[in-house]
């Protein structure tokens, strides 16, 4: 019975929750902007529509281009098995936090090589920015994990992100939350690092890498991106939210995810995109916050 619940929860998290989360972010932005906004499940409808379309493959490309979307989505789904949504994750072992971070690196590796396979200078530009930013975001993420692992005495996501019993006030946790939030925004190409709604290729990071993908390939990429955002939001929620009495683990997770969506939407509504040369400064700040949090833990 428990396995069945876990499998059902995993399927929901892998398939539907990511799109609800994105829909809530978009609803928040619309509300702040005084618009009504698209339906909550709009991105899911987009993905379904794309799955029904054909595809155009550039004559410059090879199998590398077609490898990107499928391996990227498969790696993100594998990362999802390590994340504790409501209760325990599907797969847990000591050290799975490192695997979680490196599975995203695998997704990045294939996305970047697929983009370079097109020979487009715009996609090269996006790839260059992507690897530059994430090579700074990765230390921030892993140092945050190290700090949490030191607190929890375990390097497994299930142990590190067990819900706090009360509202945490320890300075190191505050720093970890801040650092994790910046990494979440940077890794998922949200404002102030990248604008998901921009229409100018010269300013894009993630969107410009997938310009040539269409049809089912684009559907896999969009779904993978939504899932990645959800996974990191789940971790953030588990770090901040104590179990709300009366809601249980699942209700708390759902409430927390709604809160995370609103927070992301508010950041996007109130901030402008940073100049590209200033993005590394933001990321270095997040590395410093993570390192400082770790130092506080080492006392």
């Amino acid at each position, binding site marked *: 019975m428990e396995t069945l619940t876990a499998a059902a929860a995993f399927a929901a998290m892998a398939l539907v929750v990511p799109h609800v989360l994105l829909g809530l972010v978009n609803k928040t932005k619309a509300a702040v902007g005084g618009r009504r906004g698209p339906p909550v499940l709009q991105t899911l409808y987009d993905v379904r529509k794309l799955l029904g379309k054909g595809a155009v493959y550039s004559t410059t490309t090879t199998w590398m281009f077609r490898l990107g979307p499928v391996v990227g989505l498969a790696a993100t789904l594998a990362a999802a098995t390590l994340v504790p949504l409501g209760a325990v994750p599907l797969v847990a072992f000591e050290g799975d936090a490192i695997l979680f971070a490196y599975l995203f690196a695998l997704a990045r590796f294939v996305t970047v*090589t697929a983009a370079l396979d097109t020979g487009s200078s715009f996609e090269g530009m996006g790839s260059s920015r992507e690897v530059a930013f994430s090579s700074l975001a990765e230390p921030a993420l892993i140092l945050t994990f190290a700090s949490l692992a030191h607190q929890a005495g375990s390097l497994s996501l299930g142990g590190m992100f067990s819900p706090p019993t009360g509202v945490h006030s320890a300075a190191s946790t505050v720093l970890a939350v801040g650092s994790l939030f910046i990494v979440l925004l940077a890794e998922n190409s949200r404002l102030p690092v990248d604008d998901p709604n921009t229409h100018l290729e010269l300013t894009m990071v993630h969107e410009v890498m997938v310009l040539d993908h269409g049809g089912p390939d684009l559907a896999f990429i969009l779904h993978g991106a939504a899932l990645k955002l959800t996974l990191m939001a789940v971790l953030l929620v588990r770090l901040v939210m104590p179990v709300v009495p009366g809601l249980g683990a699942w209700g708390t997770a759902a409430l927390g995810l709604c809160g995370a969506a609103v927070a992301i939407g508010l950041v996007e509504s109130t901030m402008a995109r940073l100049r590209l040369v200033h993005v590394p400064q933001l990321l270095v700040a997040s590395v410093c916050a993570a390192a400082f949090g770790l130092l506080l833990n080492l006392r």
Partner: protein
Amino acid sequence: MLTVCVSALLAGAAASALLGRRPAAAAAASLSGLALGCAAGLAAALGFAGPSAVDAAWPLPMGRLALSLDGLSSLFLFAVLAVCLAAGVYGEGYLRRSPGLAGSRSVRPLFLTLTAALAVVVCAGNAILFLFAWEVMALASFFLIMAEDEHAATRRAGLLYMVCTHTATLALFLLFALLARSTGTLDFAGIRAALPSGGRLPSAALALGFIGFGMKAGLAPLHIWLQEAHPAAPSHVSAVLSGVVIKVGIYGFMRLVWMLGAVPESWAWAFILAGAVSGVGGVLFALAQHDLKRLLAYHSVENIGIIALGLGLGCLGLSHRRVDLAVVGFSGAALHTLNHALFKSLLFLGSGVFAQELGTRDIEAGGGLLKRMPWTSAFSLVAAAAISGVPPFNGFISEWLVYMAAASARAPGEVGFGAAAVGALALIGGLALACFTKAYGALCLGQPRTEAARGARDPGPAMLVPMGALAAACVLIGLWPGPAVALAGRAAAVVCGVSPEAAARALAAPAAGAALIGRLGAGVLALAALLALWRSRLVVGRAAAGPTWGCGFPLTGAGAQYTASSFAQPLARAFAPVLATQAHAAAPAGYWPRAASYATHTPDRVLDGMLLPAGAGASFSLTWVKARLHSRLQYYMLLVSLCLLSLLFWKL
């Protein structure tokens, strides 16, 4: 079996030297010697051949012909012979295709001599034999680096290598003299048994070992010969240099730690610091290179840094008497040594083919090679992913083990080490991914940028099969890490001085985790295959071909592609104070500009930035003094009397 291995290799070397005038016969002799020797040695290393120790008298003072195989030697012997076998088979095809080397009579015998010397170095049980084989190895690799000595850059690299390797040997002579003075023997086992514990001896020995072995391994700031020698050597020799010759330095460290038995805590710090500097510095300088083999050489510095982080954590475990930490740290270092030997030699073998086809080592001259050279590019992709440390390849497994060692340094007084190692590893991982997507993208993806790239073709199966075997090993260890982790665990058991069973117990949890990682990796591959199958069903009959979307911009030729330098620019800019890249720009001028150029050059910070200017300064000032001295007799006499006076005061 060890005797068979070494004598077959040496017999092959002699036969190919004698048959030098007839290349076909020499090739056959060297290949059969290599195959027989490596088969015998690999069987011994994997334990299929029973115990195979050799112990004979040798007329050199304090010397004995002692060869033995324990867990540590087995791991390194396996890496040495596997890489040398692949590189040697590939080398035959490579020599035939290189105009400058096809008639060479010395490369084959020297290559086999190098292989034999490497095998003896990692199995030697006596310091005299060790140093003898070490010198044979150094000289054989010197002559191999100088194989194409008609180029000035090659001669410069050879000289630099000669100076560095002999500085290292000098430090090793001092090291073993020191150990012999306090123990009275030069047998490794005897030194280990008779070494007095405590005192200043371990620190002095480790300092000398740090210079001697660190110079060979390429640990920053002693790495100065790597980025010059690796590009100069023929590619199959570069593969052996980077894959195994520098690893002998790591073997030396581990054997020294085994002899000392205990390590002062300060040396754990030194290893972690040197590892972090090597790792981050190596990958940053690799990012700024355009020469493929120079880029790969800097990545060797980076990976030696990762290995040194593992060694440092292992030493920390030894000094704090934490067997679990020591075993996991040394296992991570040992496994990364093996993994790096596999994927880095594969990358160098691939780079040789690319350089032959393009006529240059400049990655900007490539482009679109995945279409034109599908096999070489696919094998190089496996190696590039493995060295970037992404799952499901072998590089991730060993980096993960080092992470696990860092995470288990939890007691007060240890966490600082662990945190430093974790931070360095995370930064190295992200930057390595950036560097290899840059190099691979510029070479193999997109459109060909030159005529040579347009006409590039895969070489024959004689060169492809060794590369394929190495690539298969990288995937196999990534998906099924159990046996490799166990091999590394046995090596770590020797270094820590515990029984293999105790080491296996300490390594049980990480080994189980590694097995799960392998299974998840296989799951990722299977899931990706299913998704690809589904996609092909979805788009059946509706997949069209067209040009790359140029965002409405009409100029989308090969020249408009992003170059490797542009790709690395954001990171090069962020780390500009470290790299000190020099730009040579000629901006377009006037209303109708004709020519404009922009080139960047990133010299080595230690060699070109410090040592060469310091040497030039010393030479200049001494020349000045010499010119003054010889001008008048009085100056000369003044100097003599000053010398005598100072000696007098010193003795008073």
